[in-house]
């Protein structure tokens, strides 16, 4: 069996960030990159499946620039067997890769790899579309389930028994037939830390570079009727009273407020 795990390197904005001049993004100096939190759980789920049964290969795929290799290596260090990284000048020049374009690229990777199971994260922490997995599933004609926080794979009868985490502390129990794309929710497992040995081994694992043309695609794939036209810091809606001073003074003022509100008696 083959498990394909999609992974994305995401950026987080520093506390005091600035927008880049003339570009529709936060200035690179204020961005910190990491493996998307949701993908960490997807990677762990894939690796656990491989550990539980014989002959399971776990392959990761990312659409991302060279910088993201470091992040992808982390997935390899945690037990992913090999990785694919899709990037080229066309992608580099694409300001906004919409859901459809991402799904098309991943579709081409699926055609190449022929996985039985695809795991994605529920959402990317930076632009949070929450859509790639299900869009991909429809494109490749797999079944799917979104926001999965429990998975029991029965390859014998070709079914994934999943829990979908709904709102308000309710989970939906669903059976989906394989092959399937699952978007993985945080908390489904306990992502491991990469061991030193794993980190060492990851150095010799393959990260295969692919361009769009290697996948039989071209610039048309990235064209979109959607375009990102502006990014700005929203006007603050805050009308909070901010207590200032040393930590002690701040605590004093808050304690006084709590005193006035009768907190401790309650």
């Amino acid at each position, binding site marked *: 069996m083959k498990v394909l795990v999609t992974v994305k390197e995401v950026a987080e904005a520093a506390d005091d960030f600035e927008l880049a001049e003339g570009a529709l993004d936060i200035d690179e100096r204020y961005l910190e990159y990491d493996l998307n939190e949701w993908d960490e759980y997807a990677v762990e789920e894939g690796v656990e499946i491989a550990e539980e049964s014989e002959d399971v290969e776990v392959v990761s795929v990312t659409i991302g620039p060279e910088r993201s290799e470091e992040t992808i290596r982390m997935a390899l260090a945690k037990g992913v067997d090999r990785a694919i990284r899709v990037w080229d000048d066309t992608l580099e020049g694409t300001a906004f890769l919409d859901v459809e374009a991402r799904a098309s690229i991943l579709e081409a990777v699926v055609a190449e790899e022929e996985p039985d199971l695809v795991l994605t994260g529920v959402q990317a922490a930076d632009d*949070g579309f929450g859509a790639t997995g299900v869009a991909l599933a429809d*494109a490749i004609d797999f079944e799917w389930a979104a926001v999965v926080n429990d998975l029991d794979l029965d390859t014998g009868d070709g079914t994934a028994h999943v829990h979908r985490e709904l709102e308000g502390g309710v989970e939906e129990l669903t*059976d989906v037939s394989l092959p399937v794309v699952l978007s993985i929710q945080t908390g489904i497992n306990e992502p491991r830390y990469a061991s030193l040995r794993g980190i060492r081994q990851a150095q010799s694992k393959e990260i295969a570079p692919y361009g769009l043309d290697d996948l039989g695609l071209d610039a048309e794939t990235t064209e979109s009727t959607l375009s990102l036209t502006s990014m700005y810091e929203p006007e603050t809606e805050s009308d909070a009273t*901010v207590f200032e001073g040393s930590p002690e003074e701040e605590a004093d003022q808050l304690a006084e407020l709590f005193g006035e509100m009768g907190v401790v008696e309650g």
Partner: protein
Amino acid sequence: MTVLALAEHRRGNIRPVSYETVTAGRGLADALDTELHLAVIGGEVSEFAEDLNRDGVDTIHAVAAGEEFNHDIYTQVIESLATDLDPRVVLMPNSVNGLDYAPAVASRLSLPLITDVVGFDAGDTMTAIREMYGSKVETTIEIDADRFCVTIRPNEWPAAEGAGDAEIEEPDVEVDESRVGSTVTGFEEVGGGDVDISDADVLVSVGRGIEEEENIELIEELADALGATLSSSRPIVDAGWLPKNRQVGQSGKVVTPDIYLAIGISGAVQHVAGMKGADTIVAINTDPNAPIFDLADYGIVDDLFEVVPELTAQFS
């Protein structure tokens, strides 16, 4: 030509986000000078249709197909309705079920998809507003297409109220069962147990800013000193540092205490969904741009590891 909005129900009840899609859909229909159609799929559709007949809806399509939500059925039914109605916009909620069918609908109809939209600007070109980087920035996305799919963020549009006079249709939509590869077998309630955080008057709530499991004790001590109840954001529960019944938010509990003290919590939209109804919100966070301050009545922009022990000392 229409705007086609989708309603949502679960276990016999219409979910409130449905009335928000009516409001957002009406706004788009007005901007595009077209009608608002609303679809409700599965369950007691006739009853649902009456419930959904609110001011602003022109036509309701009540489609009897299955009981509970099933993404294969929803996708097929919406595809069929869209083929008949040729909607300019298919508008769906960015709920957990929305995440499970909206991208498939867009893919099936070969339409662009913009998710988790918080506003529209219908100028010369239609523009959708969405947030990025954990709500720290907003972006505008121009839609250069005649037809598109969107999902809207819950709790952003007011619920449509007032009785409407929509035409109610109950079309027969044939579902190809061979393309239904998923079955809902049941529901499970999680997060029960000894403590009910939704009963508490004062909640001291801890988030990822606490860094390590050992440090939770700091917050516990403060909660004890205040006679308050301890709750948390999701990552604390995901990490197994606190049990599920302490989680505040969309997938945890909705709480409405007199005081909600958020310590090291950024204020992600799914967290806010669970605590925005608190009377007084206080936030302690090192990041002055953390979205939690948009909600807070009182704030301290500082290191929790310095402030919290001082605060605890005041009450011990």
